[in-house]
């Protein structure tokens, strides 16, 4: 029986020789993740289930990243609850303060997620780790509470959509543009309940951070997971971070796909997703004259070191447009430190940027960069829903770090070519 990579990983974790789309399985979980917003509810559920200990103290990972450093008393109470639970249970992987960053940047950076694993997180962007060749998907807090108690989860095996990217990338075009283009093509529910498998020669040449960006946004097309087979690039990335052993799965050449979509990347320009859906994309050259008040560079989508390097290249020797707020949030303390050593932070400061701590910050309208009514932001984040970054009448435009940095200088949406 021929299977896709997603089916193979699910079968292996369900203790079965094979699975087919639509099968309901109970699968063993390798890593269970929650954050400061979703963990409190999951911990409550865990308590209600009534087991004493989590299934494995090394495999339950809790990250305080959304409303930290605690933005108010209520947030502080939530984080306190999570911290105390982590201590009581003796969890080896609890991250807060100077050890913490955006969860989906922290886990790969620390080598906690590996190819072939089954990873479940109470955060929709848990799909990020698909970039390593893992099956990784987001759930809610009740599911996660049950996973913490049992180490298992019920899953429906999804049909897979194969996306093949061929051709030559144009300048300033990368993973963010490929995924925005894809979401524009499929629509925000185009991959509903489906696995998305990214492949083709363009993906094989894509650096690791841009693969993360693509898998990260699979959920924005409704996808259950967004997976990329591990290759030399993946192994190189992992070799610097962990010595743990793992198994590599690959799709059978003649595996059955629900749909196969071929995408010629040669004509794709840098993309901008207009309000209020990530699928509402246009090439940057057709953005028109959209004045902006804020630019945010960071998040689990584009808070990687290479993203900051990209933005710094554009900002070097330039200044953010007068009156515009440029906010940069490195994805992790290590990225922050490396950016400092490389002089990138200095470039940002000279350009007039505010550099925030490694956390989610304004991405979800939490704090540290909320928009007022009528304000517009270009952000390297992943969602531009109504009120996502603040007032319900504010607007968020999604773009890659090069476009975001160029827009900060221009004071309107535009690409690096216009500088």
């Amino acid at each position, binding site marked *: 029986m021929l299977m896709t990579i997603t089916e193979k990983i699910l079968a292996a974790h369900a203790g079965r020789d094979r699975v087919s789309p639509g099968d309901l399985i109970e699968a063993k979980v390798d890593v269970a993740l929650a954050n400061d917003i979703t963990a409190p509810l999951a911990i409550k559920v865990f308590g209600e289930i*009534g087991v004493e200990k989590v299934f494995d103290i090394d495999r339950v990972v809790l990250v305080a990243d959304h409303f930290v450093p605690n933005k108010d008393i209520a947030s502080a109470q939530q984080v306190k609850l999570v911290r105390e639970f982590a201590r009581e249970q003796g969890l080896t992987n609890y991250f807060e303060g100077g050890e913490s960053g955006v969860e989906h940047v922290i886990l790969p950076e620390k080598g906690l997620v590996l190819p072939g694993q089954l990873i479940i997180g109470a*955060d*929709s962007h*848990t799909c990020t780790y698909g970039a390593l060749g893992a099956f990784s998907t987001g*759930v*809610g807090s*009740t599911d996660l*509470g049950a996973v913490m108690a049992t180490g298992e989860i019920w899953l429906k095996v999804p049909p897979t959509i194969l996306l093949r990217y061929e051709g030559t990338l144009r300048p300033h075009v990368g993973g963010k543009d490929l995924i925005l283009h894809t979401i524009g093509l499929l629509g925000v529910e185009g991959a509903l309940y489906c696995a998305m498998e990214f492949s083709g020669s363009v993906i094989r040449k894509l650096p690791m951070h841009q693969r993360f960006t693509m898998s990260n946004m699979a959920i924005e097309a409704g996808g259950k997971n967004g997976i990329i087979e591990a290759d030399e690039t993946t192994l190189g990335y992992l070799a610097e971070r962990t010595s743990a052993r793992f198994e590599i799965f690959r799709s059978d050449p003649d595996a059955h796909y629900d749909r196969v979509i071929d995408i010629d990347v040669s004509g794709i320009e840098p993309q901008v997703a207009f309000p209020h859906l990530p699928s509402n994309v246009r090439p940057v050259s057709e953005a028109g004259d959209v004045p902006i008040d804020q630019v945010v560079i960071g998040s689990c989508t584009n808070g990687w070191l290479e993203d900051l390097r990209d933005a710094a290249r554009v900002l070097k020797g330039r200044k953010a447009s007068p009156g515009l707020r440029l906010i940069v949030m490195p994805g992790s303390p290590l990225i922050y430190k490396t950016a400092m050593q490389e002089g990138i932070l200095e470039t940002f400061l000279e350009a007039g940027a505010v550099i925030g701590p490694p956390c989610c910050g304004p991405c979800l*309208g939490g704090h540290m960069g909320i928009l007022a009514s009528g304000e517009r932001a270009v952000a390297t984040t992943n*969602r531009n829903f109504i009120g996502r970054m603040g007032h319900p009448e504010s607007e968020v435009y999604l773009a890659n770090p090069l476009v975001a940095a160029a827009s900060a200088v221009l004071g309107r949406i535009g690409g690096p070519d216009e500088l």
Partner: protein
Amino acid sequence: MEKMRVEGRIWKFGDDVDTDVIIPARYLNVSDEAELAKNCFADIRPGFATDVAAGDILVAGKNFGCGSSREHAPLAIKAAGIRVIIAESFARIFYRNAFNIGLPLLESVEASLGLSDGDKAVVDLAAGMIEGAGGVFPARPIPDFMAQLIAAGGLVEYVREVKIGR
């Protein structure tokens, strides 16, 4: 199932209603259901939280509940009083979350198009039939496993009974 029949007023919404508008992130610093319910749809439908009554029905278009995985979204809707959500389709994390907390969902294109805001409707969950001013509409039957979850009262009870055996 806990409650097979739901009868109430219809609250109608459009396509792609995301969890950010169901419960905006600024209200996520608490996880108490009653508190969450107070701010349900605060930005796009002010007044919903105060006017909705226990037993009411939410009807929406495509891809209801897309976006973040926050379970606070179905919790807020359920705590506000909604007993069933009918939509053309649901985002998958929302779908899991709702059944896990014992809030049933029905998929029906016909009902989503045929039911109007403010009307009354009667929903038979077991049969998957929806009756409103605009007619009688069939819904896709709730999958067996989901029906088991609703019958148990949610995933917590299901895990306690079936997995842990308490």
